[in-house]
């Protein structure tokens, strides 16, 4: 135990770090993404009371559906805290308020029992808010910001999925859970993707079985690679492709996962003029307003798909730009 504690300390302090300049850019990217997803959950206003069946959650403390006004208020708070974060003011408080608003919004939206596993979009502002999101270059604070806890949480998040699959029998020979869920998704939920149609018609059994084993192995690998930057960053690149595969096969997107992975991107390696532009309040204000307009126009699904599809390109670009540090 005594030899583990110093290693854990070292990992938490410097295992994964981000520069303040990189986090400044990421903060703008993340807040704009969150704004495109707002307002969130307003469809629940039309859900009849008899469908109220929340999971164990704060909402479940009430025996009846929360009023829509509460959901609207939480959305307004989320928008306001994004604006404050974009402005670079009270970043710690705004981060925590944003996370709380997002949890409230989702808790209400999940009140029929369906949980969307996008907790990472809540975790990111909590973790980065706690470490101060870095400071702007103008303040002179240039120390790398430790973000190892975010890596640990991403690893746990993904490995949890793998453990659930393992425990429920994904690796049992003679049947394929990937094929089963593809069929359910195709015929039951009517998400008829081209890859699913092709796969159901042409994939032999060993391909589906390989998908089962590959999925479980990849997800469990998360908690193994998280402890070393040289293994975690390539795994993140693989994860972006993993999410693209899920989108193509099942038409299920997890845009909040690639958005969380971007916290590890070396945004400070972008051309200097990009960072300079994003440091200008007018530019940030325009971007934020555009993002909010996208959200109000109901185009968040298109944004989500674009995030998932572009993530591998962005991830490869960033890892390529830091390949010398990874190899050293």
């Amino acid at each position, binding site marked *: 135990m005594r030899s583990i504690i110093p290693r854990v300390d070292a990992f*938490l302090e410097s295992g994964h770090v981000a520069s303040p300049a990189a986090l400044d850019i990421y903060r703008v990217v993340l807040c704009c993404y969150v704004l495109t997803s707002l307002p969130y959950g307003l469809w629940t206003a039309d859900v009849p009371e008899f469908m*109220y*069946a*929340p999971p164990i959650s704060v909402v479940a403390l009430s025996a009846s559906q929360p009023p829509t006004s509460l959901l609207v208020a939480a959305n307004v708070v989320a928008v306001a805290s994004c604006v404050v974060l974009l402005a670079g003011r009270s970043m710690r408080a705004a981060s925590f308020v944003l996370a709380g608003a997002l949890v409230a919004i989702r808790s209400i939206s999940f009140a029929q029992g369906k949980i969307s596993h996008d907790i990472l979009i809540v975790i990111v502002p909590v973790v980065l808010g706690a470490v101060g999101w870095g400071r702007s270059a103008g303040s002179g604070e240039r120390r790398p910001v430790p973000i190892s806890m975010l890596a*640990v949480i991403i690893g746990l998040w993904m490995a949890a999925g793998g453990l*659930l699959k393992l*425990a429920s029998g994904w690796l049992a020979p003679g049947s394929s*859970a990937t094929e089963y869920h593809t069929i359910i998704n195709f015929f039951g939920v009517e998400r008829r993707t081209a890859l699913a149609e092709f796969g159901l018609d042409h994939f032999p059994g060993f391909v589906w079985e390989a998908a089962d084993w590959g999925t479980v192995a990849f997800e469990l690998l998360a908690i193994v690679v998280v402890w070393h930057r040289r293994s975690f960053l390539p795994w993140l690149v693989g994860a972006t492709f993993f999410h693209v595969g899920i989108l193509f096969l099942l038409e299920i997107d997890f845009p909040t996962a690639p958005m969380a992975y971007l916290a590890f991107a070396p945004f400070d390696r972008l051309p200097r003029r990009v960072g300079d532009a994003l440091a200008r309040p007018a530019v940030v204000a325009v971007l934020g307003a555009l993002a909010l307009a996208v959200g109000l126009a109901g185009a968040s699904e298109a944004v989500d798909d674009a995030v998932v599809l572009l993530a591998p390109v962005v991830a490869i670009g960033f890892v390529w730009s830091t390949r010398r540090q990874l190899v050293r």
Partner: protein
Amino acid sequence: MEAPRPALVRRLVFVATIGIFVAGAGIAKIASEPYPAIWAPGFEAPVDDSAYVEPLITFEFRDGTTHTVESHELLDGFPDSNHGRMMGAFLPLELDGPRPSGWAHSLFPGYQHGRFDRAERVDEVAAWFKERAVDMFGSGDLATVSVEWIVRDINTSDVIESGGTYAVDYPEG
């Protein structure tokens, strides 16, 4: 020598995070997945992978016309990822039962509220079906609405059997 304060805080957060993860797993094991939790979707393997169940919703009107729709049509306007859970409100009433009195249901009065005592809410369901009938077909003069759960072969989609029916009758007058 004592560790500096930031290192202590990081250790506490690290341990607390592991604890939150384990607690979430524990709650999921003994009750069901809570929210929030550090949890990616499991897409658990089915107990029986030879079949799947599909609801078929039939609106019968007093003038003799009948309309059959699928769940995505009935729940049009709601995200399709939620349709499965929402359709749980229309499982056969033979599967209905009283709300359990375990710790989870006692501490959280709303937990799985709509999944139990469904027979007491048939009037609410009838009123909602009537609204949907007006929206979809222009008439609310219903005789019966039924949701039949069809069990189909996973490979051929052939009907194997009926998994039961949830039905709402509309008395005349």
